[in-house]
């Protein structure tokens, strides 16, 4: 059986050979993962797409000189042309400009929600997983109950209570509904790392709980969480679009892909381009995050390498 160790890449070198063979390989696991990633086309493509979306969100002016809010009614409902690449909508706004500006809301919500949910999950999951006992039972059970609420249904119910729904409100609701899965993931990851002998070694050295969690447990339980968080960004962006589409998300005059799709649904037969462009960009963005998550999973899981 032990032979298999050798063929999965864990090679033992005689001392003299270590010097030559691994001189240039002084690298951390993260470094190795990075080198594996940049050789993967899927990662490179998804990373490029995400990068473009990010730049679009921060500097929409780089992609279009048109103002998405200047809407001459006389130009309403034009099909794509050299002047208006994506055509115009019912109010005569340039649809290309609106699609570009829509990225900001989607990406912002995706990142805010993921960041906050991740923070809750890291703190709660570490405490729950590391300390165990009654604290764990409490956190785990509450998480499970929360977990049972379907995101979209819960989102509809809660958001319907708000009069004004902006980025903050929608993000808040998605954070409130989004943390349980991630917390469960952090918790199980922490529990498995907690049992390792290097954590015992640190305890035997007299390390404090804080040190053990931050230096030993979290760095080693982070990989699956990062993968999941990446995918979550995509899922949140889709959820925001779904909520806006259902008229419980963002409200006009905000510019978001979900709203654009929502308004387009009435004219799907007469002006299909109104549905197609925001729909395509949304799909590409969500897909990129999910692809990137998959690429990360392969790179960070040493068993697959």
């Amino acid at each position, binding site marked *: *059986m*032990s*032979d*298999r*160790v*050798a*063929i999965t*890449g864990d*090679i*033992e*070198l*005689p*001392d*003299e*050979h270590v010097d030559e*063979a691994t001189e240039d390989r002084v690298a951390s696991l993260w470094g190795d993962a990075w080198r594996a990633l940049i050789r993967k086309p899927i990662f490179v493509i998804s990373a490029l797409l995400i990068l473009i979306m990010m730049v679009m969100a921060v500097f929409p002016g780089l992609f279009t000189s048109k103002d998405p809010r200047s809407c001459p009614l006389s130009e309403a409902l034009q099909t794509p042309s050299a002047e208006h690449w994506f055509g115009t909508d019912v109010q005569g706004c340039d649809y290309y400009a609106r699609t570009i500006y829509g990225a900001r809301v989607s990406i912002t919500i995706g990142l805010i929600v993921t960041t906050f949910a991740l923070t809750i999950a890291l703190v709660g999951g570490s405490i729950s997983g590391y300390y165990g006992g009654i604290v764990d039972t409490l956190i785990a059970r509450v998480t499970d109950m929360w977990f049972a609420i379907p995101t979209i249904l819960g989102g509809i119910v809660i958001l319907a209570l708000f009069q004004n729904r902006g980025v903050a409100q929608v993000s808040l609701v998605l954070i409130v509904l989004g943390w349980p899965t991630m917390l469960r993931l952090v918790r199980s990851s922490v529990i498995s790392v907690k049992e390792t002998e290097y954590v015992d070694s640190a305890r035997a050295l007299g390390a404090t709980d804080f040190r053990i969690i931050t230096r030993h447990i979290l760095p080693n339980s982070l990989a699956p969480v990062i993968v999941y968080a990446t995918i979550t960004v995509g899922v949140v962006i889709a959820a925001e679009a779904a909520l806006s589409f259902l008229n419980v998300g963002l409200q006009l005059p905000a510019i978001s892909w979900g709203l654009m799709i929502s308004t387009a649904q009435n004219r799907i037969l007469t002006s299909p381009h109104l549905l197609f462009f925001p729909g395509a960009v949304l799909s590409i963005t969500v897909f990129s995050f999910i692809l990137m998550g998959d690429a990360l999973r392969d790179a960070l899981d040493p068993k697959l*390498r």
Partner: protein
Amino acid sequence: MTQVPLQTRDLVAGKPAVPGAPLLSVENIHVEFRLDFGTVKAVNGLTYHVNERETVAILGESGSGKSVSAQAVMGIIDSPPGFVTDGSVKFRGVELLTMAEKERRQVRGERIAMIFQDALTALNPVFTVGWQIGEMFREHHGSTKKEGLDAAVELMDRVKIPLARDRVNSYPHEFSGGMRQRVMIAMALALDPDVLIADEPTTALDVTVQAQIMQLLSDLQEETGMGLILITHDLGVVAEVADRVVVMYAGDSVEKGEISDVYHNPAHPYTMGLMDSMPRHDVQKDRLNPIKGSPPDLMAIPAGCAFNPRCPYAQDICRVEKPHLHELGEAGRVSACHFVEEVRDARNRSGSRL
């Protein structure tokens, strides 16, 4: 037990067996694994054979290729990434490597069976042990469910699982490690194989249970006359049960011979190093004498003799030319060392022998 009629024993998957050929012979076999980051040369020219009623031990440390070579014999290497690139495996003189998978399957399990180190993962957790043992009969002999179960009880008795009739419907996790290994042996013996390959069968077991299992294997061998190939890193187990031993290093044999010859008068610096590394429970020993360094990288096996970077006797030629197997005086005794005579003399002079 349904005894297989003798005349079918002369056929191997429909081909006539060669009279007088060894039960199983492996010749110059090469196995490599082609991975993203390079090619791992796991087995590099191993040759050995086993006869009826004989126990041959393949002795080696991790990465020596001992398990991979057995998988090659069984034809169960995952391909890709694993490839048997050269060599020959003959069962009763019939070549197995060129056989079609369908024919090979008739040999596997029925004529050559294998047991593994980790009986818990080798058994399917969702089926009862009786069902799993019985499957062998249903699969290969077309037995009914009832017949399969009866045969399972009989086999469990034979491998001395107490209360077999009551336990035939238990699941693998309800058995202890030793009992699970017995279940695996029962499955392996189900079709009355000619050769049993045991890959580290007792490594996961406690020493008192190991003694039980080794006793069982040798009783069963006595009873059936099968050839036993024992793959292990444990020099003690080898000394106890093997008739002959093949010492492996970096995918090839460095020394072969009758067990007492090899143990009392090792003829390769690696074997000597292993012996001197062993602590003893029956003798006080002042100081162990380890081999320096660690086993080689199978992606960059040293040129010449693979052992040369760790060998205290290495000379220039050892770094250039791979030594072939020199025949020594004793029966079947070979050593892959350029300086076998000198090395033996040096060892005998220093008086460090077992």
